[in-house]
């Protein structure tokens, strides 16, 4: 998971306010929340002395901005997953929306599940139902802690 401090360390740290925010830390929060882009920090892009920082920041943010991650930042590594379905059954949203399916250990039957096992590997659907979705997100980690092979991560 990308830490806010890691992002901050790669910003100019001058609090120049050119991005429209009072501090570089505030800009880091916006950057991590995907509400601002790296290019919205003019000094970082224009001044040659920040070249290294810019490259570092682009590398750090790459997984978050890639299409591989869902809108909640969930990345599934299918090569590590063995389809045990622990995350499907442990996910609190799955349990609440699917009392006759995932809540009692079966596969999802209600069509509202976030996680399901397809072709032997876990798959994320209905992302908007996830507790980590949207501005009011809750940092739930039920699917990560129950995974024996570390196949799910949030970035």
């Amino acid at each position, binding site marked *: 998971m990308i830490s806010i401090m890691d992002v901050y360390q790669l910003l100019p740290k001058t609090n120049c306010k050119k991005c429209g925010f009072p501090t570089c830390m505030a800009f880091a929060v916006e950057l991590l929340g995907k509400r601002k882009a790296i290019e919205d920090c003019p000094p970082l892009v224009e001044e040659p002395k920040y070249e290294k920082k810019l490259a570092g920041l682009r590398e750090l943010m790459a997984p978050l901005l890639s299409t591989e991650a869902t809108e909640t930042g969930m990345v599934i590594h299918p090569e590590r*997953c*063995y*389809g*045990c*379905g*622990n995350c*499907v*059954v*442990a996910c*609190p949203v799955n*349990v609440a929306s699917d009392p006759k399916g995932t*809540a*009692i*250990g*079966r*596969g999802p039957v209600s069509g509202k599940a976030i996680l*399901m*096992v*397809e*072709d*032997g*590997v876990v798959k994320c659907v209905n992302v908007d139902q996830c507790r980590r979705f949207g501005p009011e997100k809750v940092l739930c980690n039920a699917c990560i802690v*129950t995974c*024996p*092979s570390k196949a799910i991560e949030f970035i």
Partner: protein
Amino acid sequence: MCDDIEAEFEGGKVKRTMNLCRKGRAHYDSLSIDRLTPAVGGSEVRGEEAVTAAGELLAGAECPLLLGFGRSTLEAQKLGIELAKKLGSVIDDPTSRQGLIMERILKGEVPTCTFDDVRNYADVSIYWGDDPSSSHPRHLSRFSYFPRGEKRQRGYEEDREAIVIDVRRSPTATIAADGFFQVSPGGDAAFAEALLAALGGKIPKVEDKKRMLNLATKLRKAKFGAIFTGPGLADAQDGDLGWFFSLVARLNEFTRFSVIPSLPDYNTRGLHQSLFDVAGAVSPVSFEDGIASGPKFGVTGLLESFDAVLVVGSDPVANLPAPLARKLARIPMVAVGTHRNLTTDAASVTVPTAMAGLEAGGSALRSDGVRVDLEAQVKSDRPTDLQIVEMLMEVV
């Protein structure tokens, strides 16, 4: 165990599956991969010729051995036992090492329950020498730890406790986190002794006394316990499991602790049950001179005296220790199975069969003893295990 599978087939191949783990998916994919072909002495023949050759080889033997049957339907297993009786041979399943525990369960000396009971009532699940996360990936999510049940509505964080006793930090142990107790290889009995002492209120003779006392308190306060045993437990202390049975008996003085062995094949329990019904004991069973059983009759004890082997749906050459496997590979062998493996490569006669549950129907016993009826999903021209054993009965 997985009773909620959805699969789409196209042209005899599987196209899409839901709720199947990677192992299950591979099993479905194997419908069209590396299937066995009928052969005698390495050259391909017609199916009937292979069965006739197999029957002749078995009928001509003085002391044949029947191996496997863990991946056969109940019907085929029952007929297989009849075949063993007719041949006066020994029947054994070397892949299942939990015969002793199973025998006690079938005799009613060790309490057991179904997986649904575990899901509905169990608040403590103990995995001893067992790593279901690797061997039975859906074990924890379908029944034993994560799902909610009748009396376990609040989920695994509050309502359930997983305890893993193993020699290494297995994937199951990673999930159990604080509930993992590492024992040294062969140290299971000493661990059980320390736990017994702690249960009796004495100070256990282990390094971390506090942790052991906490575990004992947890077990004493449990409302319904389940113990899942794996090959790690069955093989500990060279198969002498008296210490385990006394621990289970002691735990049952506090509350009900049920034992369910994690078995390797889908119908190993069926074979144990069928043999128990006939012989009053589980494998190995000898029909050579009346009915007798005991480890000395099995593949590990008597291998040199057998002059023909019939392997049904199993791969003993790959599973047995190398010296035994080498000896086994030298004996004239008939291999009946679905796929090519080391045993079929070493066999002089191979007979292909249909995959039960996919190409053929039948019934099986889950490892908790619940009967499951299997149905054919795709058409196949391969005969079933049952038909092959029927044909062998006729030839013999």
